[in-house]
């Protein structure tokens, strides 16, 4: 895509985040039709309205609930139904999903999903769908390129063994870099809507704290404290015990490595802190909303609920809760339960009476004991699933948070991995 030029202050984030009022020059404005629709208002309380009103949707929630798929489906819907230019920024999509979005081997670069791909799924998008994947290492390197004061510092950092370890392996670095990338794309491009999938974290909240933690880290007194002896060799009485312990545990060389790394990093201190603060502001901006994804299983749902409460506590906008893989409604029906019990308890007599009817269709299928086994299996399977469906319904009823949109997506009995599938899924939570 064509990159737009931006000012240096915007690049470092000093005027970014909440203070960015207009789109970058060169960006397309929202279509007239859309603005009109907005003024008459979308149905409130629908995903349709939420995605039309916001610029950033952060999809978050516990692991294994279908976050990535839901984020992709929301982006597909917005691209197809609204005349918007939509980006889905995804972290670790299933291979088939990545293929469907044309992401295979693309990495960090934003990439437009071609209209032909939509056409082959029978869809004609009004807007555009773009997709990008998050490559942590590449994003970190880009960050160093951006903030390093000179080439020498830049190259030394990139070659530092600690840096390579941090950017490659350091768990929390994913959280920070995801939000950093979001900020970069939002401030430098002209998407109407960006849907972000969040990385799997030990704790669903980690990525929220990441920008602040990063800022704290680089402004930490301890950081300076640690660096001092390697700059001046002056160790005062207060810090001496710490060094002697640290030296004995880690070894002097390693401590020196750490210090060198942070001395280098300090040269980028201002850029980093400003930037992480701007990222933090963007997350709490009113143009940003959060969609919490969950299933109705007890453990993930409690985690999602906790997360939703935390969002509210931080005054972040909880736009939607999407409940995935919900078992179909017909499983709740008490009548169904009665029918299934009758079918199971009277299977023998029922199969005797059913046998002649089946015989008239296919004599091979008319053995009554076989019919009986089938009826019992069918009935018990229904009753089994009913237990789970009722449990899910109760879990849902106890949900203590009230988002703008509460959507359910039924259980899909096959995998979703193409644009058509994403669209079908998206239709379920659209209105």
């Amino acid at each position, binding site marked *: 895509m064509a990159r737009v030029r931006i000012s240096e202050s915007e690049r470092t984030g000093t005027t970014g985040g909440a203070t960015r009022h207009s789109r970058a020059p060169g960006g397309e404005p929202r279509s007239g039709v859309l603005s009109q629709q907005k003024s008459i208002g979308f149905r409130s309380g629908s995903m349709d309205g939420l995605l039309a009103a916001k610029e950033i949707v952060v999809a978050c929630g*516990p692991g294994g609930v279908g976050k990535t798929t839901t984020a992709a489906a929301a982006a597909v819907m917005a691209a197809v139904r609204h005349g918007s230019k939509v980006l889905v920024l995804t972290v670790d999509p299933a*291979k088939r999903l990545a293929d469907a979005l044309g992401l295979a081997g693309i990495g960090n670069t934003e990439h437009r999903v071609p209209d032909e791909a939509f056409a082959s799924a029978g869809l004609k998008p009004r807007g555009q769908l773009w997709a990008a994947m998050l490559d942590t290492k590449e994003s970190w390197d880009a960050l160093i390129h951006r903030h390093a004061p000179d080439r020498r510092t830049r190259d030394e950092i990139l070659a530092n063994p600690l840096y390579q*370890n941090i950017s490659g392996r350091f768990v929390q670095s994913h959280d920070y870099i995801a939000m950093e990338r979001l900020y970069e794309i939002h401030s430098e491009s002209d998407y109407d809507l960006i849907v972000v999938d969040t990385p799997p974290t030990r704790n669903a909240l980690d990525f929220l704290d990441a920008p602040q933690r990063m800022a704290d880290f680089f402004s930490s007194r301890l950081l300076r404290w640690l660096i001092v002896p390697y700059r001046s060799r002056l160790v005062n009485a207060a810090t001496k015990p710490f060094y002697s312990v640290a030296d004995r545990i880690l070894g002097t060389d*390693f401590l020196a490595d750490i210090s060198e790394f942070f001395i280098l990093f300090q040269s980028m201190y201002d850029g980093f802190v400003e930037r992480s603060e701007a990222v933090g502001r963007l997350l709490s901006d009113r143009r940003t909303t959060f969609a919490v994804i969950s299933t109705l299983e007890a453990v993930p749902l409690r985690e999602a609920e906790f997360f939703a409460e935390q969002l509210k506590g931080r005054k972040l906008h909880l736009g939607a809760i999407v409940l995935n893989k919900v078992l179909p409604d*017909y499983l709740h029906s008490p009548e169904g339960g009665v029918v299934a019990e009758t079918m199971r308890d009277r299977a023998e007599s029922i199969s005797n009476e059913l046998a002649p009817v089946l015989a008239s269709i296919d004599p091979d*299928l008319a053995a009554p004991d076989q019919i009986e086994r089938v009826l019992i*299996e069918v009935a018990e399977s229904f009753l089994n699933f009913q237990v789970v469906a009722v449990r899910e319904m109760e879990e849902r009823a106890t949900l203590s948070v009230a988002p703008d949109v509460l959507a359910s997506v039924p259980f899909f*009995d*096959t995998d979703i*991995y193409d644009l058509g599938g994403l669209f079908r899924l998206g239709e379920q939570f659209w209105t």
Partner: protein
Amino acid sequence: MTERAASTVAPLLDLKLVFVTGKGGVGKTTVASALALFASTQGRRVLVCEVDAKGDVAGFYEAPPTSFKEKEILPSLFAMTMDTEASLREYLKLQMRIPVVGRIGPLAKAFDFVATAAPGVREILTVGKLCYEVRERNYDLVVVDAPASGHIIGQLAAPQAINDLVKVGLIRSQTDWMLDILSDPRTTGLVAVCTPEEMPVNETIQLASRLGEETTVSLAAVVVNRVLPELFGRQEEEVFHCIGGPAPMAQLQELVGGDAGPVLEAARLAVTMRRTRATHLDRLRHGIDDTVPMLYLPYLFTRSHGLRTTRQVASSIGEELGY
């Protein structure tokens, strides 16, 4: 696959240290809790350690919250929660004879800092504590409710990474014995939990190959959780389709005295779900070395979770292990 797996897989309960991992949402904690419970009922003295600190393990035993100091919550079953700072304190006290009491304040601050600055420090303290329990033979088996598969490699590779980064010093000398424990397939193993779904299967296959490439820990077993029951054989399925036709259906409704539509629909759902999952199971079997045992645990159609469910899973594990 590397030659790592070749004929070295020890029976699960004969191991001393078992890391249980898996993609989020597949039932990792359930399996870890149930495995520990089963081992404890087989006369093993077992420690189950929660590393993720979500406090779930206690819930699976309906026990009060756990802490760093282990507690016997069921006969010969001890539980603890990992706390890296407490681990550091214990380490300093035991290994370096440093009188910690007076210095906890600045030490805690400094620790948090060094742990953030020096990658691997937090991980090494976790793995170190676990290996220490094994080395001291405090338990027959230590079961770890480990981080999800995305994070476990970093944890298990930490001793090696530290070895590469730190050339001298006390930590360096400490990582050697840890590596000995982690690398011995008769002592340490990893259990990968997965469900027969696309992403969990992908992650499990990926985990198995990364484990061999980036760590010295062996894959001891793959647990396939939430396997749906097979409703029909082939001919029974034909009978089922036939019953769904207009004439048999009309009569069936009359016989059961109500709308049988939803009941049959639910069976169709169950059949398709199982079929979709079967293809993923196939991929899993092809993607994992033949010598790694696979344990299949059934989908539980239960009302709630708790000790009762954990016991149910424990007995399924027992059956799969041939007890």
